C-alpha cells in the first residue's frame, strides 16, 4: 500500500532527525567556547560601542526575541555576505537585517501561523512546494547549526570566524545543495535566508531592518509616497527623499 510505504518514510525521517539532534549536540559541543562565551561577551564590536552610544539614542528594538547570541551572530554574518556593504552603501549588518529576521521568526511568520500545516506529510515534487512539518523558526535553528557544523568540518572554525571568502563558500554549498544533510533542505534554508535578507533590507523600517530607510536610498526608492501624479509623465528620473509609515502617525 502506498500509504504504508509512506509511513515508513516518515518514520525514517524522524529517526534521522533524532540522530541529527544527537550528533549536532556533539558538534555544537565543539562550538562551546565560541557559543557560550559568545553569549556573554560582545563579539568584535567592542571598539565601536562607546562611540555609538554617544552619537545615537539607544535602539531598544535591537534585542533578541528568538535567536540566542551565537545564532544571531551567525545570521548577521551570513546575511552580510548575501547583501554586503560596498561602495554603494551599507550591507545587511548595518541595515539591521539580523534583528529583522529575529523579530519575524518570533511572530506568526516563524510559527507558519497562516500556512496549511495539517498532516499527513509526504515528499512531493518540487512543483508542489514545501511539504515539511518544520516551521520556519525550527528550520532556522537547524539550518544555522548545520552551517556551523559544516564550517567546522570544512575549515575547523565556526562560521563567524571564517574569512569572507570561506563564508561565501559555505553559503554557496548550501545554496547549491552540495551539503549532505538530511534534517532540512540545504537550499531550502538558504533560499529562506536570502528572501528574509531582502525583506530586512527593503521592508518599512517599522520592522527593524532598512535602518533609517538606507536600504531604500541605495536604489532611489521613495518608500511610502501618497502621490506620483506629477511624476508619471516626467522624462527625467525623479530623486525623491523617502518617507516611511512612521510619517503617517
Amino acid at each position, binding site marked *: 500500500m502506498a500509504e504504508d510505504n509512506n509511513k515508513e518514510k516518515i518514520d525514517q525521517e524522524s529517526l534521522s532527525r533524532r540522530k541529527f539532534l544527537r550528533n549536532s549536540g556533539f558538534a555544537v559541543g565543539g562550538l562551546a567556547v565560541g557559543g557560550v562565551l559568545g553569549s556573554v561577551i560582545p563579539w568584535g564590536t567592542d571598539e565601536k560601542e562607546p562611540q555609538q552610544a554617544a552619537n545615537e539614542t539607544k535602539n531598544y528594538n535591537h534585542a533578541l526575541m528568538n535567536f540566542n547570541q551565537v545564532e544571531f551572530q551567525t545570521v548577521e554574518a551570513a546575511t552580510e555576505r548575501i547583501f554586503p556593504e560596498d561602495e554603494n552603501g551599507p550591507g545587511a549588518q548595518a541595515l539591521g537585517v539580523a534583528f529583522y529576521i529575529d523579530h519575524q521568526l518570533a511572530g506568526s511568520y516563524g510559527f507558519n501561523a497562516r500556512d496549511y500545516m495539517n498532516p499527513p506529510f509526504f515528499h512531493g515534487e518540487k512543483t508542489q512546494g514545501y511539504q515539511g512539518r518544520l516551521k520556519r523558526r525550527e528550520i532556522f535553528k537547524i539550518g544555522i547549526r548545520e552551517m556551523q557544523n559544516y564550517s567546522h568540518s570544512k575549515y575547523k572554525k565556526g562560521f563567524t570566524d571564517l574569512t569572507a571568502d570561506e563564508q561565501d563558500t559555505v553559503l554557496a554549498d548550501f545554496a547549491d545543495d552540495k551539503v549532505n544533510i538530511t534534517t532540512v533542505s540545504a537550499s531550502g534554508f538558504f533560499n529562506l535566508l536570502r528572501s528574509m535578507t531582502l525583506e530586512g533590507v527593503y521592508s518599512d523600517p517599522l520592522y527593524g531592518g532598512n535602518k533609517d530607510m538606507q536600504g531604500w536610498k*541605495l536604489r532611489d526608492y521613495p518608500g511610502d509616497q501618497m502621490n506620483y501624479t506629477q511624476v508619471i509623465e516626467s522624462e527625467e528620473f525623479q530623486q525623491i527623499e523617502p518617507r516611511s509609515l512612521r510619517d503617517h502617525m
Partner: protein
Amino acid sequence: MAKKLPKTDVVIVGVGWGGGIIASELTKQGLKVVGLEKGQERETEDYYMAHDELRYAVRYELMQDLSKETITFRGNEKMRALPMRQYGSFLFGDGVGGAGVHWNGQTFRFLPYDFEIRSKTIERYGKGKIPADMTIQDWGITYDEIEPYYDKFEKMAGISGEENPLGGKRSDKYPTGPMLHSPQMKMFKEATEKLKYHPYTIPSANLSEPYKNPDGISRAACQYCAFCERFGCEYGAKADPVVTVIPVAKNTGKFDLRTHSWVRRVLHKDGKATGVLYTDLTTGEEIEQPADMVVLTSYVFNNVKLLLNSKIGRPYDPASGKGVIGKNYAYQIIKGAATGFFENKKFNNFAGAGALGMVIDDFNGDNFDHSNVNFLHGGYLSLTQTGKRPIQTNPIPSDSATWGKEFKQNSLKYINRTLSIGAMGASLPYKQHYLDLDPMYKDAFGDPLIRMTYGFRDQDKELAKFTATKAKEILQEMGADKIDAMDELGPYDITTYQSTHNTGGAIMGADPETSAVNNYSQMWDMENLFVVGASSFPHNSGYNPTDTVGALAYRAAEGVVKYSKDGGLLTS
C-alpha cells in the same frame, strides 16, 4: 442541531465582485438578500497604513488564511496530490470585497472569438486543428449578447480607457478617458506602431478622473501611488465592491451582510435548493439560512467545493469525459515574457498604478493566422507600470549571481533601468485538467479540500515561446541593450506567483450534457441555484478575467430576478 433563521428571498455565498453585483441589483429590485462572507469587514479607512510591501504583498494580509483552507495540487493523475501549504502561484482573496479589493484593475473584454471558440476554430482551420483531448467549447452566449453587460459593469466601475482597435464592437465608449502615459508607455507605443501593431492604453479600474457612476456613487481619481495589486486603495480610486456595489445594496435596507460566516453546504430537497448551512466563526454556532434562491459567488475553487460537498450536479469524470462539476479547469499562461536592460536610461519605475500600461492584441484570440503555429488562441502583450516595489522586484541579468556583491551591484543598477513586456496567454482546457474533492486532506471543518489536477501542455509551451519571441522583438525595437526572454516554459509549478486567474469547474454552455450552468449562470440541475464567477468560464482567454466576471454577474442578476417572477429554467 443548527439554529434555523427566518427565510429570505435570496442568500449569496461570498461577497466579492459577484456577490456585490448580485446584491446591489437584486435589492434594487426589492428582493431581500442575505450575504454570507467568511472573512472580515473591510473599509477604505483600513488602508491608512497600506503602503507596506511586507505586510500586504509578501505576508498576504488581505488573503485567505491557508491554515483553515487551501487546495491540493498534482501535475497529473498519476501523482499524489499534496496541499498548497503556502501561497505561490495564485492567491485567495478574503473578506468583504474578496479579490475585488486586491486586484490591479486591468479590465478587458474577451474577444468575440472566445465565446464561440470551437465553432470559429473549426470554421477557419477545420476540426483537425483542435487536439483530441482539448475540450474547448462554445460558451452558449455570443459577444453581442454579453456586450450590454460589459457596458454595465464598465459604467458601474468607471473604467478608464480608449477603444481596442482589434476588439469586439462597443455600444458606447469607456465612461472615463485613458490613464496618463509615462515615457515607458510612449516607448512601447512607438515601437509597436513601427512594427505595424495596434497599441492602446490598458482599460483601467483605477480612475483617470473623478467619476460618478449610474448608481450615484462618486469616487476620486487615481494618484499613481504604486500600491494596487495585493493592496487596498486608500483613495477608493480603484473600483472595488466595497466602494461601489456594496454600499448601493446596503442603502436599500434590504441587504443583510454577515461576515465571519463560513458556508459549508447548500441545502436542497427534491432537486431544489432550500438554503445554506453555515458556521458563525465568532461563536462556532451552526446556522441554517433558508432561502427561495441561492447564489454561489465565492472564488472558483469554493464554488466547486460547495457543489461537490453538497452533492449537487454531476461530478466530472476525466476517464469518460462525462459529468460537469469540476470540468475544464484552466489558468493563464504568463511566463512567455521578456525583460530589457537599458544601460543609459533611468525610469521612474517606483511610480505607477495597477492598471497603468499599454497593450497590443495583434497576437490575441484569432486576431492572427494560426495555420502555421502549433497552438490555438494567443494572448495580449503589454508593458505595465504597476510600481516596482523593492522586496519583490530585483531585476538582474540572467547570468548574474543571485546573492552577494555582484547581485547587490546589479540589482541596484538595474532596478530603474529595466522594462518588461508581459504576456497574458490564454489557457485552454483539457480532458485531464479538472477539480474534484481530495481523498485525504480536509479544511478546518473536516470537509474535503478541492484537488486540482493541472499541468502545462504542448499548447501552452508553444504559446509561451511565441509570446516570448514577440516580447523580445518589441524590446529590441524599444532599444534595449540586453534582453532576457523566456526560453522554455517548463512544468507548471505552484510555488511561484503567476496569476490569480483561475477559471472553470462549473462552466456555462447551451447544452446541459456538457455544461453546469446556462448563460444566466443558472444550474441546469437545480433551477433556483445560480453559480456566478470565473468558475463558469469554459476556457480562459488572453485577458484578465474581471470584466467578464462582472458582465456575467450582471446577467445572472437579471436571471435571478426573472426566475423570482416566472420560475423555471431561463432561456435566452
